[in-house]
């Protein structure tokens, strides 16, 4: 078990080192992407559409950074096994370590973003509350469960049905607009809201935003999120388990 933990760590470290190798700005690109989107949306919604939400830029960033972590993991998931075909076909090790390492890489980047965000929030007069100490790890675990569950399905099924890679791109786009990132879930009509609650990310992004904006996190919301996360992870694990035996011969 510890041997596999060490291998997982080695794989995450590799992904991390390779990701921005030979780029001048390196890790800053992980920050640049959500910031660029935030600025575009800020311009459109505040200056064009006259959205009156107070503090809208912080509102956007608080949702876009965690969203970027999950979206980037999901977008990369279909190619996890295809990109490591040589490894999967030639050496045996628990296959699940590859999608886990890909997620781990995104989570490490997200953690670095949080480290960068704290001083920015202090300067912006929106200092992190004490609740962050328990809420950030707890919410991160729930987010990892949801993301890993979905990534396991995408990575293993795509080996059999390569169309999934194309579908994933569309799926992530749709999921973005079905998740309260640009808007607050409280602004939704009751019926729409009831439907969107089936989106696992509904239980991830609003709590992040609430934590940043008000310094609080509702235990009940987190509880639902944890249950949803466990369900998605279990489903993903089940699909992956059925598929992993044939990976080497399908690649």
């Amino acid at each position, binding site marked *: 078990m510890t041997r596999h933990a060490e291998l997982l760590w080695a794989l995450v470290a590799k992904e991390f080192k390779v990701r921005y190798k030979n780029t001048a700005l390196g890790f800053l690109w992980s920050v640049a992407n959500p910031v660029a989107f935030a600025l575009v949306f800020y311009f459109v919604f505040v200056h064009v559409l006259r959205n009156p939400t107070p503090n809208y830029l912080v509102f956007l960033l608080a949702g876009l950074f965690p969203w970027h972590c999950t979206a980037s993991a999901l977008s990369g998931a279909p190619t996890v096994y295809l990109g*490591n075909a040589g490894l999967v076909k030639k050496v045996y090790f628990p296959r699940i370590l590859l999608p886990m390492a890909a997620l781990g890489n995104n989570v490490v980047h997200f953690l670095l973003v949080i480290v960068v965000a704290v001083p920015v929030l202090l300067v912006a007069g929106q200092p992190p509350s004490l609740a962050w100490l328990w809420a950030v790890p707890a919410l991160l675990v729930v987010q990892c469960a949801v993301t890993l569950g979905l990534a396991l399905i995408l990575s293993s099924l795509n080996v059999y049905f390569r169309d999934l890679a194309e579908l994933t791109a569309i799926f992530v786009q749709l999921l973005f607009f079905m998740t309260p990132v640009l808007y607050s879930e409280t602004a939704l009509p009751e019926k729409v809201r009831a439907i969107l609650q089936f989106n696992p990310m509904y239980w991830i992004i609003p709590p992040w935003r609430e934590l940043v904006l008000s310094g609080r996190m509702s235990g009940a919301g987190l509880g639902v999120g944890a249950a949803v996360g466990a369900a998605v992870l279990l489903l993903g694990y089940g699909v992956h388990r059925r598929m992993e035996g044939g990976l080497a*011969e399908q690649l």
Partner: protein
Amino acid sequence: MPSSSDGCAVAFRDVVKAYRRLSTTGLKHALLHLPSFVREWRAPTIRALDGVSFEVRRGEAFGIVGRNGSGKSTALALMAGVLGPSSGEVRVSGRLAPLLELGAGFHPELSGRENVGLNAAILGLRRREIRARFDAIVDFAGVRDFIDEPLRTYSSGMQMRLGFAVAVHTDPEVLLIDEVLAVGDVEFQRKCLDKMAEFRKAGVTIVLVTHDFSTVLSMCDRAILLERGRVAAAGAPAEVAPEYQRAMA
């Protein structure tokens, strides 16, 4: 892996490995040809191995020969645990070093040092084991001066030596070799052969897959000849040789 007491390092019992004819499937194909797709999915029809049985005794050097497509590489992949058998039983006991590919997981942008760590972890070494053997690996590969340079600056020969060096420093009990000796310059090949001889003396089980019969004659205690997924001949290399000549003719 549990070590068995019956003196067998590798045992195949009536092993069948069937592949699906629909190798890389698209959704469109699956939906348009649903009945045949389901049939093929449930009962794959290409048999790479068709009822193969053999045993490799502990400490033995064992050769597997045959034409391209006779099932050699499939047998090796089953031993490595990369594939699972469709039916029958594959048993391997002892720490495995699969030399199916040298430098598994090597990344061109990472340094030689980083790649050694990664490759060794993939082959199952613990971090402290890697630390303890690092110098021996680098010296064996002869790349000490370049160890902190990115791997893409290495010649292909240097990359191979580094991959081989890591693989042979994993304390293998069972070594699986898939014609990797066929590549590299003369000096490297000699180094490989020397290392093999050293392993044999140390009692390491060696399974060698090749279509170069002279290697089998010089290195192996026993061999089998595979033909269309079946064992066509088995025994001492000298006994298998005539069958091999016939099969290749």
